[in-house]
C-alpha cells in the first residue's frame, strides 16, 4: 500500500470496506454484496458490479437467507449492514441458513457497542455472545480501520462464515502501520509489549487501552496490550502465555456486555486449563440499557471508560 498512515490518524472503516469490496470483486467473480438498506459504503462495488449487488430493503432475515442461497451455489456473499439488526433479527437465519451448513457468508457491519448515540435499539452489545454461540462461526471485532481490509481479504479463503464487527466506522483511529503486525484471523495482536499486566481488548477500545498503557508507563508499570480481534476461536495459547509472562494479572476491556464477550472467553480458557490469576478485572457494559450520550460519555458512565481502565490497571498491578 503506497499511502502511509500515522498512529491516531482518523480514517473511515466504512470507506475501507467499500474500496476493499470493490477491489475483491475484481479478483473474485463470485463475490456478491448484499445489504438491508445500508448501502452508502457500498457504492463503489454497486457501481462496478451492479449485477452482484443486492439491496433487499429493510429485510434482514431475507438478506441473510438470500446470501446463504448464493453461497450454496458456490458464491462468496458479503452481507453488510447495521449489526444490532443483523445479529438479532436475522440471528436464526445466520444460525440455520449459514452456520449449520457452514457456508462462506461474511457478515460485516457497524454499530458494535455503545456507538452512534442511537439509544439501546441501535447498540449491538449482545452480539459477541450470540454469534459466539454459533458452531462454525468465526467472530471478529476490528478497531483499526485498515485492518478491516486485511480481514476481508483473508476471509475470501475461509470455508465457513465470519462475523466482522466494527464500531461506528465513520472516523476510526489508525492503530497500526500496514505491515507492522502479522495480522491473522484467530491470532491476537501484541499491540504493546509489557510484563506487569496484560490488558486484553478488541475493536473500538484498543486505542483507549493503548492510551492507558502510556499513562501506566509514566507511573512505572509495564502494560502489555493485546488486541484480541478474533473473539472466536480465541487465541488460547496467547492467553496462557500472557498469564505466565505478565505475572497472572489480567484486565479485559470491551465495548460489549461485560459477561458473554471476550472476558468470558478468556475466563473459559483459564478455567479449562486450571490457570489461576492474581488479578482479573472485567471492564464492559453492565446489565443496563445504556441510553443516550456519545461514546466517550457512555463508557465513562457505565464504568469502562479511560478513568475506569486506569483504575483497574492500578488495582491489578497492586495485587
Amino acid at each position, binding site marked *: 500500500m503506497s499511502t502511509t498512515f500515522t498512529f491516531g490518524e482518523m480514517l473511515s472503516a466504512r470507506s475501507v470496506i467499500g474500496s476493499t469490496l470493490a477491489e475483491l470483486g475484481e479478483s473474485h467473480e463470485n463475490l456478491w454484496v448484499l445489504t438491508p438498506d445500508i448501502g452508502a459504503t457500498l457504492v463503489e462495488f454497486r457501481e462496478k458490479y451492479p*449485477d452482484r449487488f443486492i439491496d433487499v430493503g429493510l*429485510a434482514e*432475515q*431475507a438478506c441473510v*437467507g438470500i446470501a*446463504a442461497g448464493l453461497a450454496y*451455489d458456490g*458464491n462468496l456473499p458479503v452481507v453488510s449492514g447495521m449489526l444490532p439488526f443483523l445479529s438479532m433479527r436475522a440471528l436464526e437465519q445466520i444460525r440455520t*441458513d449459514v452456520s449449520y451448513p457452514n457456508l462462506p457468508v461474511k457478515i460485516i457491519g457497524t454499530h458494535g457497542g455503545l456507538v452512534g448515540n442511537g439509544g439501546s435499539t441501535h447498540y449491538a452489545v449482545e452480539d459477541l455472545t450470540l454469534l459466539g454461540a454459533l458452531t462454525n462461526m468465526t467472530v471478529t471485532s476490528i478497531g483499526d480501520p485498515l485492518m478491516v481490509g486485511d480481514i476481508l481479504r483473508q476471509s475470501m479463503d475461509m470455508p465457513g462464515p465470519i462475523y466482522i464487527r466494527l464500531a461506528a466506522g465513520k472516523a476510526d483511529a489508525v492503530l497500526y502501520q500496514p505491515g507492522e503486525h502479522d495480522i491473522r484471523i484467530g491470532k491476537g495482536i501484541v499491540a504493546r509489549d509489557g510484563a506487569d499486566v496484560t490488558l486484553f481488548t478488541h475493536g473500538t477500545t484498543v486505542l483507549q487501552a493503548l492510551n492507558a498503557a502510556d499513562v501506566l508507563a509514566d507511573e512505572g508499570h509495564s502494560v502489555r496490550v493485546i488486541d484480541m480481534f478474533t473473539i472466536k476461536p480465541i487465541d488460547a495459547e496467547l492467553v496462557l502465555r500472557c498469564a505466565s509472562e505478565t505475572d497472572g494479572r489480567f484486565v479485559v476491556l470491551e465495548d460489549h456486555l461485560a459477561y458473554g464477550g471476550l472476558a468470558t472467553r478468556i475466563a473459559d480458557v483459564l478455567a479449562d486449563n486450571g490457570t489461576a490469576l492474581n488479578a482479573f478485572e472485567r471492564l464492559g457494559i453492565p446489565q443496563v440499557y445504556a441510553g443516550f450520550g456519545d461514546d466517550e460519555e457512555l463508557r465513562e458512565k457505565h464504568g469502562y471508560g479511560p478513568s475506569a481502565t486506569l483504575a483497574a490497571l492500578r488495582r491489578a498491578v497492586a495485587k
Partner: protein
Amino acid sequence: MGEHTPAAAERPSVAELEERAYELREKLLHLCGTYEGAVHIGGDLSAADVLTALFQYGMHVDPSDLRNPERDRFVLSKGHAAVCMYIAMSIRGFFDFDGIVDTYGKLDSAYGMHPCKVQLPGVEASTGSLGHGLPLAVGMALSARGRGEAHRVFTLLGDGETGEGSVWEAAMAARSNRLGNLVAVIDRNRQLMTSFAEERVVFEPYPDKWAAFGWNVVQVDGHDMSALVGAIDGLPSSSSERPTVIIAETVKGKGVDFMEHNLAWHAGRLGAADLERAMASLAASRKERVA
C-alpha cells in the same frame, strides 16, 4: 417448458405419475408404521402428489450427476415434509428406500425429521425451521441469473409456513430482482399444527396476496396429477421476469380417510392395526380414483 426439462418422450404419463404417487404414499405409511417415533405424516401426504410431479416430471435432475450446474434446484422450505421428499427422491433414483426406512431417525443416519445437506448431499439445502426456504431459493435463483444459466429453482412451502415474515421479505426480493426462474409451490392444505388455518389465521384472499407481491399466480388442485402437470407445462420461460407461485389446494392426510382433515395427524406413528387400516384406506382411495 424451460430449456432444461427432460424431453417429452422420456417423461412419465399422468397415469404413471399417479402410480408413483401411490407408491410414495404406501412407502410413507410403511415408514410411519415401522419407525418408533412420530412422523409428520399429515403434511407428507398432502405434499405427495406435488413432490411426485416435481421429482418425477417437472424438474430436470439427474441422480447420477448431483452437481450438474444445469440441474434444477429444489429447496424444501416446508422442511417438515422431509420424509416425503426423501422417498420421492428415492423413487426418482437418488437414494435406496431401504436405506431410508431402515435408518430413519437413528444415530448417524442421513435421514431425519428435517433435511440436512451436510449429512445427505443429495438434498440442496438444510431446512426445517419454517420461512427459510424461499430466501434460500431467491439466492440460488439470483446465482443462476448471475451465471447466465437457464435452470429453475423450485421450492415447496406449506401455507401455514407463510405466516413467517421472512417469506414475504423474500417474495418482495424475488419480484424486485425479476426472478422468473423461481417457482414456489404452496402446499395449501389449510391446516396448521393445532388449528384449521382460517380458524385462527386469516390467509384469504391468499392468491391475491401473492399477486399483490407481483408474482405470477397459478392455482391448481394439488391432488389432480394432470392439473399439476399442466401447471408445470405452463410455466413461463425461466428467463421471464415474474416469479411463479403454484398454489396447490391439498388435503392434509390425503389418501387415508381417518387422517384427512384431522388435527391429530399433524405428526404421529402408526401401530400395526392402524397401519393396516391406513393401507386399506389408501387402496380404497386408489380404487376410487382408477374407477
